[in-house]
Structure formats: structure tokens, C-alpha cells
């Protein structure tokens, strides 16, 4: 059942929350009506049926979206979403971080194989963003490891719940929230896709089911990243009885994603070097959290 919950959260709550953000946040701030809440599903299904145009036919390109999608789902199976993660007994946070990395690699691969100047610029930006954003996740999780003595994400969450919040965990949570914006590819950090600069970057040559899978994977990625933050650093509710623990988790991630959506809508896009500079700051915050943890705070 936990399998079903985690996969379901990633596959269906992801686009749904995206739809909520588009309608309730983005459109409202824009003074627009906005599309229906389930528009992301309409989009996905429509894309799945659309013609798949290939400018550089290649087996690898054909599999890149599948790999991205599968990697995110596999990461979702390692992520605590209100309950002990279904595959929690088979992978720790290092495995999780690398699974997420696979998805990023698949995006870069897609961009590189297409070899369009825009997709190459996009892949290069994706890579650089990954290089500065991923360390934040790692450092925050290491902070939790130092506190809890375990590399397993569920144990970290449990420890945090039992022992109450500590300064280091709060600082780490803040750093992770600052990184969340980029992890889910929202403004001001949607630099790799940058529609008005490089027309979608790595995805410019993709259409139909390939694009649909990448988009769906990204909807799921929002849920996965938000879940890590919600489960480990905001442990409220994880010891509720079923189904209230899942409901509490859902509430937390919806709030997080809506916050992300708000930031998204009131910011222009930064440039890659500005974003890197920003994230070196965030990394510094995360490191402070880790030092605090080492000091026992």
C-alpha cells in the first residue's frame, strides 16, 4: 500500500498541485481567470497522443525521458511521504540523491543528443544549476545524518520528531527551502528552460510523449523534493495514525509548493552566473547548519 501511496502522490498529486498553483496563485496574481485545475492532466494526455517529431533519431534520446520518469518514481519510493517509504530498506539518502541526479542527467543527455544550440545551452545550464543546487540537498541531509546517526531518511525524520527541532535542523530546513525553488525548476531559477531565451533548452527538439514524460517527471519531482523537506525538516504529523499522517504530509507539501508558486510569480528569471552566486550563499547557510550540528546544536 505504501507503494501505491508514494507512486500515487508522485504521479497524480504532482500535476494536481501544479494545476492548483496555476489557477489559484499564478492566475490570481496575474488578474487572470486561469485554466481549470486539472489542465496539467489535459496537457499531459494531449501530448501523449501527439506526433513525436525527431530531429536527431537516437535510441538514447528515445529512452532519456523514460529514464528521467523512472528515476523520479524510484526516488519517490525512497522518500518518506507520511509513511515509512516502501523501498526505505533498500536505499539511503546517498542512493536517493543519486537517483535524483539520474533524472537531471537524462535531461542533459536529451539536450546533448539533440545537439541544437539551444538544447546545448540548456543542457549546460541544467548541469551548472545541478552542480550548485544539489550540494545544498546533500549538506542538509548530512546535517540530519550527523544529528540522527543514520543515513536512512525515515530514521532521520523519526529522530527529528522524537528529539524535537534543533537549531541546526531549522537552519538546514531553511537552506533546503531556499534550494527548493531551483530544484523544482521555478522562477527565478527556470534558467535551463528559459522559454524567452533558449525556447525550452533541452526540450526544444522534443514533442509528443517524450515531452509529456519529462513534464510528468517534473511534476513528480516537485512532490519528491517537497516531501524530503516536509518529512525530515518539518516532522510534524509523521506519527499520526493512518490516514492522518498521509493527510498531514499532503497538507505540508501543498503549502510548500504553493509558497514556491508565489515566489515564482513575483520574480523575473535570473542569469546563470547570478543564480550560481546566489546558491553559493545558500550552500554557505547549509554549511552553517552542518557546523551547528557538529557542535551538537
Amino acid at each position, binding site marked *: 500500500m505504501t507503494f501505491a501511496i508514494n507512486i500515487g502522490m508522485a504521479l497524480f498529486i504532482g500535476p494536481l498541485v501544479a494545476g492548483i498553483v496555476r489557477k489559484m496563485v499564478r492566475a490570481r496574481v*496575474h488578474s487572470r481567470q486561469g485554466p481549470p485545475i486539472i489542465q496539467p492532466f489535459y496537457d499531459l494526455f494531449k501530448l501523449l497522443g501527439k506526433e513525436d517529431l525527431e530531429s536527431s533519431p537516437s535510441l538514447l534520446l528515445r529512452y532519456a525521458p523514460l529514464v528521467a520518469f523512472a528515476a523520479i518514481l524510484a526516488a519517490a519510493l525512497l522518500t518518506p511521504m507520511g509513511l515509512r517509504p516502501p523501498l526505505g530498506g533498500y536505499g539511503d539518502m546517498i542512493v536517493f540523491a543519486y537517483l535524483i541526479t539520474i533524472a537531471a542527467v537524462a535531461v542533459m543527455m536529451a539536450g546533448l543528443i539533440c545537439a541544437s544550440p539551444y538544447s546545448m545551452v540548456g543542457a549546460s545550464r541544467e548541469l551548472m544549476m545541478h552542480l550548485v543546487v544539489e550540494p545544498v540537498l546533500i549538506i542538509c541531509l548530512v546535517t540530519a545524518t550527523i544529528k540522527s546517526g543514520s543515513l536512512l531518511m525515515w530514521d532521520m525524520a523519526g529522530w527529528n520528531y522524537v528529539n524535537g527541532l534543533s537549531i541546526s535542523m531549522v537552519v538546514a530546513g531553511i537552506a533546503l527551502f531556499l534550494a527548493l525553488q531551483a530544484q523544482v525548476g521555478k522562477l*527565478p531559477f527556470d534558467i535551463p528552460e528559459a522559454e*524567452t531565451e533558449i525556447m525550452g533548452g533541452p526540450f526544444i527538439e522534443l514533442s509528443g510523449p517524450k515531452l509529456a514524460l519529462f513534464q510528468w517527471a517534473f511534476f513528480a519531482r516537485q512532490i519528491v523534493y517537497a516531501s524530503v523537506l516536509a518529512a525530515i525538516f518539518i516532522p510534524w504529523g509523521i506519527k499520526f495514525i493512518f490516514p492522518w499522517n498521509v493527510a498531514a504530509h499532503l497538507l505540508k507539501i501543498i503549502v510548500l509548493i504553493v509558497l514556491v508558486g508565489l515566489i515564482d510569480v513575483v*520574480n*523575473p*528569471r535570473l542569469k546563470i552566473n*547570478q543564480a550560481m552566486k546566489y546558491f553559493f550563499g545558500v550552500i554557505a547557510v547549509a554549511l552553517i547548519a552542518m557546523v551547528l550540528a557538529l557542535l551538537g546544536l
Partner: protein
Amino acid sequence: MNAQQLGDSVKQQFGDKVVELSALGPNQLCLTITPDSLVSVAEYLNKDLGCRFVINSGTDRRRQRGKFLITHFFAHDEEKIYITLHTEVGEDQPEVDSITPSVPAANWSERETRDMVGVVPVGHPDPRRLVVADDWPEDVFPLRWDVPHDLKPPPAEGVAMPLLDPPEGASVVPIGPYFPVLEEPEYFRVFVEGEEVVGADYRGFYNHRGIEKLGSSALTYNQVPFIAERICGICGFVHSCSYCQAVERAAGIEVPPRGEYIRTIMLELERIHSHLLWLGIAGHIIGFDTILMQVWRMREPLMWLCERISGNRKTYGMNLVGGVRRDIEPEIHDDVRRVLTDIERQWQELYNAIPGDTTLMARLQGTGILPTEVARARGAVGPTARGSGLPIDVRVDHPYAAYDRLDVKKRVYDGCDNLARTLVRLDETLDSINIIRQALREMPEGEIMAQIDEEIPAGQQAVGSVEAPRGEVFHWVLTGPENRPERWRVRAPTYANLQSVPPMLQGDALADVPIDIGSIDPCFACTDRMEVVDVSSGQVRVYTQDELLNKKY
């Protein structure tokens, strides 16, 4: 110093090189000089007197005088004088010395004159073709009188304009012709190394419409304003206004004061709408769609207002030679005031929010640097020039319509970057609101259109210019027989400003390219004055006179 005195000083300097000298009122000077002295006179005007190069123009006068008339236009902004520098070259040797080496701003227009009239600028540093299509025959020059306006040369395959290759180690990132943030087809060939732009080349004029040709071969004086207004879909009124002013000056027609005020009000309304439109697009370019949505919402009542006044949201169709066709009736005044107050309030909120938005500032500040000297050398105009510290504004420098009676401020910033250009436009939006209010208050009663009884004599010439939202719109009309201009030359502001884009891009990040291009508020339609393409058949066709008259847009 007035035009006559300026002419005298040129005469003193060059003696009998100046063949003919006449002043058309205090603000316009016509000089005819010998071809061999062209470069030295141009240099004298540009370097010694500080005149700004505007445009040049070629006229086929072989029927009348057996010669080509090459005209270079300069503007002496401090002294409020336009200088028209004529040179005649024989048809047996259609060549003229290029002034581009000493006056770089002439780069494009000399190439255009070569393409259109076939007079070769000798010594031009970049002799590639500019405006005609890649497959246009080498020996057909559209603006010669013996080339029919509906000529359709056979299409050719495998011909392309030679473009620059990227420097070693860099690669091309094509921005255009079809690109999300370019509303019209233009091709910026951007050379990048990593994310850094190390150079650029430009190819435009994909949709050349041949409007100038139509104006001097198929239309009448009073038909031209309507096609002139269609040169641009955003700021069409400036073109029709500018054209009408040129004809009125050439023919000595006095526009009634109320007509002038109405023109002023429409021009300023157009400026507000255009600046708001630009702000929205600029926001969209840097990914800030909230600005786009909110600003365009702000702009909507204004569009409604224009419809209320003219019957159209855009392309008002109000100008005719001699005045305007529609009055702004007293009952509309309240609507105008209400809309303006509304926009002013919202604009103020926006204006206060911008300096505090660090991400926005990070994108605008220090990007797209156009140093003052480069802007001057390349002939930048409008907010592009004023953002680079050049205090030029046609409304003040060469007053027209009712501007000499209104309070117009020049908004000049010397940041030279995208932010400076943005601030210029923001300030001007508020200024425009105030100008309209003042004009409404002070507008006299009376006629809106002059009575024109006599036919306009042939062989007269005059300049008409308007400060469009993007800068100086410049029209020159040489009157002709058959109730139509013999030559009608149009220079849209983007034509001048586009030449400043490559130096802006240099050294910027690839991410800055769209906003750099966007920061001049490019209007490629104006620049191209394009042909109409029938999308369904893919055929390029130029409308005939009858079709133009009967066609409903």
C-alpha cells in the same frame, strides 16, 4: 543661428562647392553640393557642427534631369534645424563617395540606397546587400521609376546573403527570424563562447513591403496617410502624422490649431500605450509574466479610449494632409481624464515597486551597455539615445503639432544600460499623461482641418518628423505631379536604433540578448516597410491601387 545663417557658414567654408543654398523657413536648410565635396561637407556637418546624421535617400530623377539625386539628411538638434544635403550623380556613372568611414551612422542607409536605386557608395566598409531579398536580381533597383511597383522577379534557389562566421572557438546561436520574443522576423546571428556573447551579425528586412515605392507610384497624397499609418501596428499614427507634416510644410498648408492639439493628444496616447506595451513585453522577456499581465491590463482602458475617440483600438486613421478627420468632442474629455487618472495611479504603484525588486534590477542594471559615444556615432534616437545620455527629443528639438505650446521635458539618463532605457520610458509615460491633460485644458475651439483649394505644386520638398515612442520618425517628401509625391522617404526609429544593438550585445550573457534587443523597443515592421505575404499560398504579392482601396483591414 537659423537655417540661413547655418547655410552661410557652410558656404563660407566650402565656397563654390556649394551649388545651391536655400532655407525653408528658419528650421530647414537645403544645400546642393558637388559630388566630390560630399565627404568633406558631411564630415564638417557631423564633426565640426555636431549635426546628427539622420538618413540618406536616393531619388531617380533621370526623367527630369538625367541624374540621380542623392540626399543626406542631418539634424542640428540644438539649433532646431534639419539640413538636406543634395548631390547629383550622372546616370552613366551611378556612384557616390561613401560617408560611412567618417559618419558610421550612414552604414545601413547607404547600402539601402544602393539596393533600391542602384547608386553605389564607393568606399563603403561593408558592401553587402541590405534590404532586398536574397534572391532579388542584382540589376533590378526597385525605386527607379522604370521598375513597375508590382514587378515579380522569378524566385531563385541557393542564394543567401553572406553573413559573418563566428570567431574561432565560438559558435552561432541563431536568435530569429522566428523566435519567441521577437514579434517579427529578424535574424540576429549571435556568436557565443560559453554564455558570453563575443559578437553578432544581423539580417533583417525579411518582409520588405515596398511602401515607399507605392507612395510615389500608385497612391495619391491623401491615400498615403492611411498606408503610412500601416507601416507600424503599434505606433502608426506617428508615421501618418509625420508624412502629413512633410507635405503640409512642402505645400505651405497651415493646420488649424485645434487639429494640431488633436494630433498631439493622439500622439501622446499612442506613446502611453506603446510604452506600457513595451514594459509588458520586457517583463515577459526576462520571465516576469506578472508584469506583462498587469501592465497590459492597465493598458486596456487606454485602448478602449482610443476606440472611443477614433473608432479603432489601433490604426486610428485620423490624419489627412491639412489636419485630422475626427474631433475630440467635449463629452469624451471626461472619459479621457478618468482613464488617465486610473493609469497614473497604477503606474505610480509600479514605478515605486521597481527599484526595490532586486531580481529585476539584477537583470536590467549593467546589461546591454550602449556607451554615449557609440550611441552618438551610430545615430541612436529616442529612449535608446536618452538612456545613453544623449539629450535629443524631437518634441523639444524640432517642435511640431502643438508641442511648442506645451510643457515637454526631455528625460535623459546616463546609465547607458537596459535600466536607463526602462526608466526613460517609465518617466515619459507619466509626462505623456500630463501633456494630454494640459492639451485638453488648453485646446482651442475651431476647425480641425485646413481648407486646401489649390493643387500641391511639384518639385517642393520638406521634412516631417515626429518623436515616436521609439524615437525620431523622419519623413521626407519631394512633391511631384499626378497628385502624388515624387519621392517619399521614411526612416523609422528602429532603423537607427538597430544599428546600436551589436555593440550592446558584445560581452553580455546569452541570457541578456533578448532583453538587450528588446530594450530598444524594436519595431521591425517600421524598419522593413514590408511586402504583404499571402500566408495561404505562400506567394509574395504587392497590392495594387484598386486592391488597396477596396481591401478591408
